[in-house]
Each structure stands twice: as structure tokens, then as C-alpha cells.
């Protein structure tokens, strides 16, 4: 079997001392920021990107990936013990997880989240390994018209599945696309929208945008809210092991959560957050067994299913990135940036040109998941201590690391002035109730979209019908149209709004 040869190659790469260390650092950092409310994987990965310059590309990507899926584990700890989502994808875990903790069952809740996540992570990694190769085959049939249509589908998918106003989300994508065009045009060499500032001819750095909007913007927003009374269960968490009854309830929930998470992760716009929402909704629809606590009062299924789903989703969202070079969410958009920094053009050719990177990354995810179970269950006490660190010590440190990260990308203070501007813009976005994630996606895809549009139109001699006459391209566009129509249907529209309000 080719798959096993490939996985063997991957494990060979992942099991080197250096890569194990970086996988561990990634998982540790991921858990850390997952546990700490107020800082997410997007800002963290952006902060650490410059620090990975000196690393070999495999080690850098292994570490950054670890931060993303590690954050899904850490987020559940805070959700269960503090009644706050440490990570946005743990929003639904709060509901039943915190109730379990109040009833003295924090241990089993943490175990359900950790073991469920581990199982889901393993399945997600396997799916990634199994599907990557055939999908890459398909991707090689893609011409510029198909790529353009695929990006349209990806962007539409990203907003359809996101929360909030559809119209505003689409507008944010277009705004992101426009911002991505700032800088020198590769075809004509014209510096666009650079206002004769030499630093702008290279384009706006995506680290600057990510850090300003996701880092500073959110810190300002957090500080503007009065301190909430946090009730932290700092007392010893006793008896991690769930009972036999718990396992009986948990296992089907974990299986359902994993399935939903894996599917939604692959979809453009999917990923951890949406997966968790969908999984919880489905659990709620499933009938309660006799003697089971209702949802919202500490049902273990309400913890196991969303936590499995968000972890499965975070693994499978690497599929579109690694096979097609298209990022399905903001974190993956940053991974595109990380790959470009290391001179790897994301896309189907990665698997053939850098097989050790491709399979090494996949294998490292499985190892990372194993590390995370160990980090999160037996060592839970360490993370609980961390939760007692007050925010007034944390946020100046976050501000500092953002500033250092921004400066070190180009060793140029111009980036620091830029990030200040984007910090203000980021806070403005929050005040205006527009979500910044689609902006980042558009920003990354902007130059790619323009390039593919130009090529497709050049080949068709200016005939726009090329996008609907080529069958693959037409079906991708049709899928995008169907997605749009479905969400605009009144029945679905109400459901969608309902689903995202429920927290």
C-alpha cells in the first residue's frame, strides 16, 4: 500500500529529535493560549511566524499546526472550569461542561473532552492521509478558470457557514481582496495603491493585518468590558476517570461528533468552530436516555461531542490547504503565509515536490494529539494554576509579543506604525459588528484570484463564458450558487440565525 509507505516516510520525519521537540513546543503553546481566554490561535501563529524564519520548513509547519489543534484541547479546560470559552470553538462546551464542574464532576468532563479529542484527532489525521492523495490528483486537472471558481466557492462557503450578516461578510471578503492587491502588480510592475511609500510596494504584510485586527483589536475590546467575576475551580480536580455509565453515553456522542467535525472541516469556511456548533445541535436533537441529565445541566454528551468535533474539524481543515492550496479559514490562511515564507508554494505540487514535509506534517499531527492527551489530562493541575494569573499581567505581555513579532518580520519600524493603524481598524470592526476572519481570507486569496482570473481570461481571449463552459469550473460555481441560495431560503435563514445566537 502506497499510503503505508507514505505514512512510514512521514513518521520517519516526525520522529526525529528536532521535529518531536517542535511538535511539543507547538502543542504546549497551543494548550497555553487555548487555556488563556483573550488570545486565539490566529494572533499566536501570526506572532510566532517571524520566529520560524530560522527553522527548517518542516519543523516550522509542525510547530504552527500544533498551536492550532493544541488550542482546541486547551480551550475546553477553561470552558469547563471557568465558564468562559478559552477558545471560540469551545463556546458550546461551556454550557454542559461548567455544569458538570459545579456538580463536582470536573474530572470526568475534562476526561471526556480530552479522550474525545484524541479519538477525533486520530480519525481526522487518518482521513487527511487517505484523502490527500486522490484529491491532489483532481487538483492537477485544474486550470486557471477552475482555480478561480474554486476560490469563489471557498470564499462563498466561508461566509455562508460563518455567523453574522451574510452581506457584511461578503463585503469584508471583497475588502480583503482589495487590500491584498496593494503593492507591485506582478504582470506590469506597477506599484498599486502604495502612495509612493517604498515599504508599501511590497504589499501590506499579512502578519501586520492579523496582529493588528486579531491581536490589538481584541485586547482593546477585552479591556473595555468590566472585569467579570470569574469563579475558578482551583480546588483539586479529583477522579479524572469517567464512570462506566459515562463511557456508555460518551462513545456514541464522540463518534457522531467526529463524523460531523471531519466533514465540516473539509468544507470551505468550516473548521473547528462550526463543527462544535453543529455537533452540539445534533446531540440536543438525539433523545435522552433514561436517567440522563438534560442538556444544559451537565450532560457528558454535551462536552464529548463538540470537543471531538472541533478537534476533528481542525485536523481535516488542512485538507483543502495541502491539496489545493486554498485556505478554508483564517488559521489556514496564516499557514499559507508560513509556507510562502519558507518558499513553498501551497498547492497540489507540495505532495510530490516536498513529500517529507507533507507526510511529516500529517504524522506529526498524530504524535501531537498523543502529546496533548498527556499534557492535558495528567498535567491538568498546571493549567489550572495558570488560570489564576490575572489579565492585567497577561495583556501587556501579549501587546509586547505582538510588537516584537511585527518588528522582526522585516526588522523595520514601518510595520509597527502599520500595526497600530490596523489595531484601530480592528477595534472599529468590532464596534461595527463586522467579523474580521473573512477579511484575512480574502487578503490571502486576492493576488491568487487576480492571477488566475487574468490567465483564464487571456486564454479565452476575453470571453467570460469560459467559467461556465468548462465542466469542472461550472460545477464549482454551481455549488457556490446552491450554497448561497440555500442560506437565503427563509426557513434555513432563520435556523442559521438561531443556531448562532444559542450560546
Amino acid at each position, binding site marked *: 500500500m502506497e499510503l503505508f509507505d507514505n505514512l512510514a516516510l512521514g513518521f520517519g520525519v516526525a520522529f526525529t529529535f528536532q521535529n518531536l521537540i517542535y511538535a511539543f513546543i507547538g502543542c504546549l503553546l497551543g494548550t497555553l493560549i487555548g487555556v488563556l481566554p483573550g488570545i486565539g490561535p490566529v494572533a499566536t501563529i501570526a506572532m510566532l511566524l*517571524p*520566529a520560524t524564519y*530560522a527553522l527548517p520548513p518542516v519543523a516550522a509547519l509542525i510547530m504552527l499546526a500544533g498551536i492550532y489543534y493544541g488550542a482546541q484541547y486547551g480551550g475546553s479546560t477553561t470552558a469547563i472550569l471557568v465558564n468562559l470559552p478559552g477558545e471560540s470553538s469551545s463556546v458550546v462546551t461551556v454550557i454542559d461542561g461548567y455544569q458538570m464542574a459545579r456538580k463536582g464532576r470536573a474530572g470526568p468532563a475534562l476526561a471526556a473532552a480530552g479522550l474525545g479529542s484524541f479519538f477525533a484527532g486520530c480519525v481526522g489525521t487518518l482521513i487527511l492521509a487517505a484523502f490527500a492523495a486522490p484529491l491532489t490528483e483532481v487538483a492537477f486537472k485544474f486550470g486557471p478558470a477552475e482555480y478561480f471558481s474554486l476560490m469563489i466557492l471557498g470564499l462563498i462557503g466561508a461566509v455562508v457557514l460563518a455567523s453574522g*450578516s451574510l*452581506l*457584511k461578510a461578503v*463585503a469584508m471578503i*471583497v*475588502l480583503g481582496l*482589495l487590500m491584498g*492587491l496593494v503593492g507591485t*502588480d506582478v504582470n*506590469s510592475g*506597477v506599484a*498599486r*495603491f502604495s502612495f509612493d511609500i517604498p515599504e508599501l510596494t511590497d504589499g501590506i504584510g499579512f502578519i501586520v493585518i492579523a496582529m493588528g485586527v486579531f491581536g*490589538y483589536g481584541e*485586547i*482593546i475590546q477585552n*479591556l*473595555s468590558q*468590566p*472585569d467579570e467575576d470569574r469563579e475558578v475551580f482551583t480546588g483539586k480536580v479529583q477522579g479524572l476517570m469517567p464512570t462506566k455509565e459515562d463511557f456508555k453515553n460518551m462513545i456514541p456522542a464522540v463518534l457522531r461528533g467526529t463524523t460531523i467535525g471531519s466533514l465540516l472541516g473539509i468544507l470551505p469556511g468550516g473548521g473547528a468552530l462550526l463543527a462544535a456548533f453543529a455537533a452540539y445541535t445534533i446531540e440536543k436533537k438525539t433523545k435522552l436516555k433514561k436517567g440522563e441529565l438534560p442538556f444544559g445541566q451537565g450532560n457528558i454528551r454535551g462536552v464529548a461531542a463538540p470537543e471531538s468535533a472541533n478537534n476533528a474539524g481542525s485536523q481535516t481543515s488542512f485538507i483543502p490547504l495541502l491539496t489545493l492550496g486554498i485556505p478554508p479559514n483564517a488559521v489556514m490562511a496564516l499557514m499559507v503565509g508560513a509556507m510562502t515564507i519558507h518558499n513553498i508554494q501551497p498547492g497540489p505540487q507540495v505532495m510530490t515536490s516536498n513529500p517529507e514535509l507533507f507526510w511529516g506534517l500529517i504524522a506529526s499531527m498524530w504524535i501531537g494529539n498523543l502529546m496533548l492527551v498527556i499534557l492535558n489530562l495528567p498535567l491538568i493541575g498546571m493549567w489550572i494554576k495558570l488560570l489564576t494569573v490575572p*489579565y*492585567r499581567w497577561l*495583556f*501587556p*505581555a501579549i*501587546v*509586547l509579543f*505582538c*510588537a*516584537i513579532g511585527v*518588528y*522582526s518580520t522585516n*526588522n523595520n*519600524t514601518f510595520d*509597527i*506604525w502599520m*500595526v*497600530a493603524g490596523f*489595531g*484601530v481598524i480592528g*477595534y*472599529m470592526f468590532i*464596534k*461595527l*459588528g*463586522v467579523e474580521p476572519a473573512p477579511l484575512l481570507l480574502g487578503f490571502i486569496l486576492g493576488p491568487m*484570484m*487576480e492571477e488566475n*482570473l*487574468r490567465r483564464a*481570461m*487571456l486564454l*479565452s*481571449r*476575453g*470571453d*467570460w463564458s469560459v467559467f461556465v463552459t468548462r465542466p469542472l469550473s461550472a460545477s464549482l460555481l454551481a455549488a457556490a450558487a446552491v450554497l448561497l441560495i440555500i442560506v437565503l431560503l427563509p426557513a434555513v435563514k432563520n435556523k442559521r440565525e438561531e443556531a448562532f445566537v444559542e450560546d
Partner: protein
Amino acid sequence: MLIKSQKDFFSGLMFTVVGASFAYGATSYSVGSGGRMGPGYFPLLLGVILAILGAAVMFKALVVETPDGEKIGKWAWKPLVFIISANLLFGILLGGLPSMGIPAMGLIAAIFGITIVASLAGDDFRLKEVLVLSVVLSIGSYLAFIVLLKLQFPVWPTFIAG
């Protein structure tokens, strides 16, 4: 006409203004034709689309009723000003401002600057704690970024290190 949703109205306005500016800017580059797109083609197209989307958002904000008027609410000036100035101060201390004759003071001074000013953004400012935090962050950053990762930073003021 009354604004039914303040948030939507002003975000729509923002989209329209930004989109129109991009479209206007794009006309100064060669636009070209569909088959041979110039550097202005795609930005012009997107700028127009963004302006239209913004107008649609504004229109909706004037027509569709919302229960609470979706007010933007108060701006949190204090954190906004302190966080952003902390960041700017960091840049000035770290790299200096040659145009205004301010010398570079280096990383350590910059860390103290950013930590102290950023801390002022919180509700609860305790000078002693902030100073301890600055020392801890300075040592930690020096070890992590300069010793371990070997990033190129000016660590000490130029007039000392030369």
C-alpha cells in the same frame, strides 16, 4: 429617515467609501480589456462591487427594523489610546526616529516603555507590579529572541553600544 441599525449603517458607509476610493484609485492605472487585463482592471471591478455591497448594507440599515437600534455604543477610548500609543512608543524606542533626531534606545528600553504604557490601559494600575513584569519580560525576551532565536534587534541604546 431614521437609521434602524446604527452598526449596519456605518459599516455600510465604510464599505462604500473604501470601495469607491479603491475604484477611483484604480482608474489611474491602465485598466485594459477583459482579455488583456491591466493593473487597474481587477481593483476597479472589486471597488465597484464593494461600493454596491456597502450601499446595500446601508439600505438594509434604513429599512429593516431591529429591536434595539443596534447602537454602536461608547468607544473605549482609554484602552484604545494606551494600547496603540504603547505600540508606537515601542517602535520609537526600539528603532528611533531618524527624521526627528530621536536615537534608538534599543529593545530593553522599548520593553519597559510598552509594558508600562500598555498597563495603563487596564482598570487597575499598580506601578510596582508593572515594573516587576517589565523586568521579567525583558529577561524572558532577551533569552528567547536574542539568545535562542538570534533575531536581529538593537538591544541597547545606540550611544552605549555604538
